[in-house]
């Protein structure tokens, strides 16, 4: 099918392009931008007047497993509503993705739903038990783009170093949450707020000790590591130094840590119960600057839908997590405006840089590239209400907030998978 997108403002971080241009698509790929051949006769024309035409968003962290039946359908629909065309999900499905057959099945189901491209992470260890490593080669052939323990700890550093060693044989990336198993039992970030509220704290040392440990193992094994969800200024410094040393590490930060602090817990709002916990203002500021200067490669939604019942309990008992696929775009835009970052640069952490971190072909608008696009109105206001969210999870810290920036249309391989 030949499609013509007219009068949009094309913004492509990979090439630095930001200009009014038309886009021509054929057979699911981009054929031309700007100078469209006169003999191109489209079967469909899409008016993009007032819209930004950006690469489809690449979200490196979205859970698809909960809360209810039909979760895959609803959460991929939420991805499409959020302008996400490439999505990485962690392996902690039920059962965990530790066998190629399970990965095949998941990819098959996702393909049938035709909402976005799914790039699963395989389990690093069998059953995510932290002990025996999985058949990483077979899992990669089935479509896994990396290996992760999700939230589960490794049995010990010896096992971790062996798992990293094995993964590095073929250059697979190991995705790890930087949290020390024994120090991360608290429910809020250690600090004045946790002390005042009487909540058990997670010290920054939980993150820094884990980062130091893993980086030592990277030096030793040469494994590629992606750090999931940095939360502290000290953590940012450690990653910055590792990168300057030339170590093969990348990192991401969640939309929640980018905008919120521990003060936002307020009167024990369970929507603020998150992992990693929300830290102090200076940590948030360091994370925002690190995303701008590239120390942190990607911004992720960390989408974790949680059933209402699991949140309406005392803070420490609440299940951690926040829904976020549909907030990735407006919260990225908000960060960009507040940091005075040009739109082409603000989009990078959710498009080209995110794709580069996992080594997939996505997140750019170029002739020959897949026609995965996110058309959005950057100035359109909307209020975050449960009725406005396609996800089954209505648990977001931003409930009731007004967002600016709304997806108008999401295109995957030339097909419109979402229209507002």
């Amino acid at each position, binding site marked *: 099918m030949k499609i013509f997108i007219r009068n949009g403002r094309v913004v492509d971080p990979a090439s630095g392009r930001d200009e009014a241009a038309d886009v021509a698509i054929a057979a699911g790929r981009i054929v031309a931008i700007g100078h469209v051949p006169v003999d191109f006769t489209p079967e469909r024309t899409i008016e993009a007047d007032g819209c930004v035409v950006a690469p489809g968003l690449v979200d490196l962290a979205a859970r698809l497993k909960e809360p209810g039946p039909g979760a895959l359908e609803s959460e991929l629909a939420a991805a499409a509503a959020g302008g996400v065309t490439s999505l990485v999900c962690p392996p902690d499905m039920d059962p965990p993705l530790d066998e190629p057959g399970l990965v095949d099945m998941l990819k098959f189901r996702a393909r049938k739903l035709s909402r976005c491209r799914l790039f699963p992470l395989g389990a690093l260890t069998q059953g995510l038990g932290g002990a025996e490593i999985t058949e990483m080669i077979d899992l990669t052939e089935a479509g896994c783009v990396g290996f992760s323990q999700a939230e589960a700890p490794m049995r010990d550093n010896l096992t971790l170093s062996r798992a990293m060693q094995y993964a590095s044989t073929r250059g697979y990336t190991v995705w790890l949450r930087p949290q020390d198993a024994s120090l991360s039992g608290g429910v809020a970030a250690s*600090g004045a707020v946790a002390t*005042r509220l009487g909540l058990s704290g997670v010290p920054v040392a939980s993150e820094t000790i884990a980062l130091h440990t893993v980086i030592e193992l990277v030096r030793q094994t040469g494994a590629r590591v992606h750090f999931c969800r940095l939360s502290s200024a000290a953590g940012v410094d450690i990653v910055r130094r590792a990168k300057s040393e030339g170590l093969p590490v990348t990192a991401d930060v969640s939309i929640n840590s980018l905008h919120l602090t521990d003060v936002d817990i307020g009167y024990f709002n369970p929507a603020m119960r998150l992992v990693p916990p929300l830290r102090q203002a200076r940590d948030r500021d360091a994370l925002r600057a690190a995303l701008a200067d590239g120390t942190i490669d990607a911004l992720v939604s960390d989408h974790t839908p949680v059933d209402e019942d699991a949140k*309406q309990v005392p803070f420490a008992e609440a299940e951690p997590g926040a829904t976020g696929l549909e907030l990735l775009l407006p919260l990225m835009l908000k960060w960009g405006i507040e940091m005075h970052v040009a739109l082409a640069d603000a989009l990078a952490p959710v498009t080209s840089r995110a794709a580069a971190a996992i080594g997939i072909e996505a997140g750019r608008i170029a002739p020959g590239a897949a026609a995965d696009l996110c058309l959005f109105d950057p100035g359109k206001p909307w209020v975050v209400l449960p009725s406005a969210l396609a996800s089954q999870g209505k648990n977001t810290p931003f409930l009731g907030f007004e967002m600016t920036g709304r997806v108008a249309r999401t295109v995957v391989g030339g097909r419109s998978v979402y229209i507002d």
Partner: protein
Amino acid sequence: MLARRNPQLNAHGELIHLLSIEGLPRAILTQILDTAGTFLSVNDRDVKKVPLLRGKSVFNLFFENSTRTRTTFEIAAKRLSADVINLDIAKSSASKGESLLDTIANLSAMHADMFVVRHSESGAPYLIARHCAPHVHVVNAGDGRHAHPTQGLLDMYTIRHYKKAFNELTVAIVGDIVHSRVARSDIHALTTLGVPEIRAVGPKTLVPGDLREMGVRVCHDMREGVKDADVIIMLRLQNERMSGAMLPSAGEYFKSFGLTEELLALARPDAIVLHPGPINRGVEIDSRVADGSHSVILPQVTFGIAVRMAVMSILAGNDA
């Protein structure tokens, strides 16, 4: 981000729930203390009952056991002529898996007017206050480590009774402050009432530097902590602290932080000693001090009933 009204106050700034002392204006604390004075006299009459809460149902919801606190609330409610229903939830439906909110909904259907709640998790009373019917008042009888506002208020009443003016006092709080809801409520009350010097005294594992942000001076030396103090509030040391690698033994704790007569002599000659109870003799406090002339531990209990009567009657008189 969003400014939120203190859930304890209605639109007119009147108290409709007592969840924490933090965030309450000084005028409300003073109102409670003044009202408590009135109720103290009720305890001396032949008829120790007034009809203010007659026909009202007060439900004691104790998710964490405490016979003493529950009993004082029960006495206070009965002296106000309320009907009191005691629910030891720890033994009943919650252990069968009923959620907290379902329990509250069921009780509200039984026309409760007031919930007195004790829970092991910080913040639980806020959840209840958010979800109970508008006319129902919630009194926090202790939530996790966060707050025990009626204890804080009765401690303030005790201090006011013996010392009169708050703005010239030096108050030392000694013990396991990081795990203590009583300490937090005391600190908020003391700062709101204008006490200029508040000291948090104890070993680093129990008195972390973070506490400074609450407006206290952190002391890890008992002699420094009690020197020239007008008021010493001793906290109970719980056994779990020894098993959690926070303290080696009760014996070593007593040697460095137990209140002995010798240490008490460093405080002001007319210093008073408070303790929320129950006391661990020989662990945080020497028997001779607990039973001595500076101790006001027993009057605290009497004041506690009057303070709780004051809280309940003020709440019952305010609309949501």
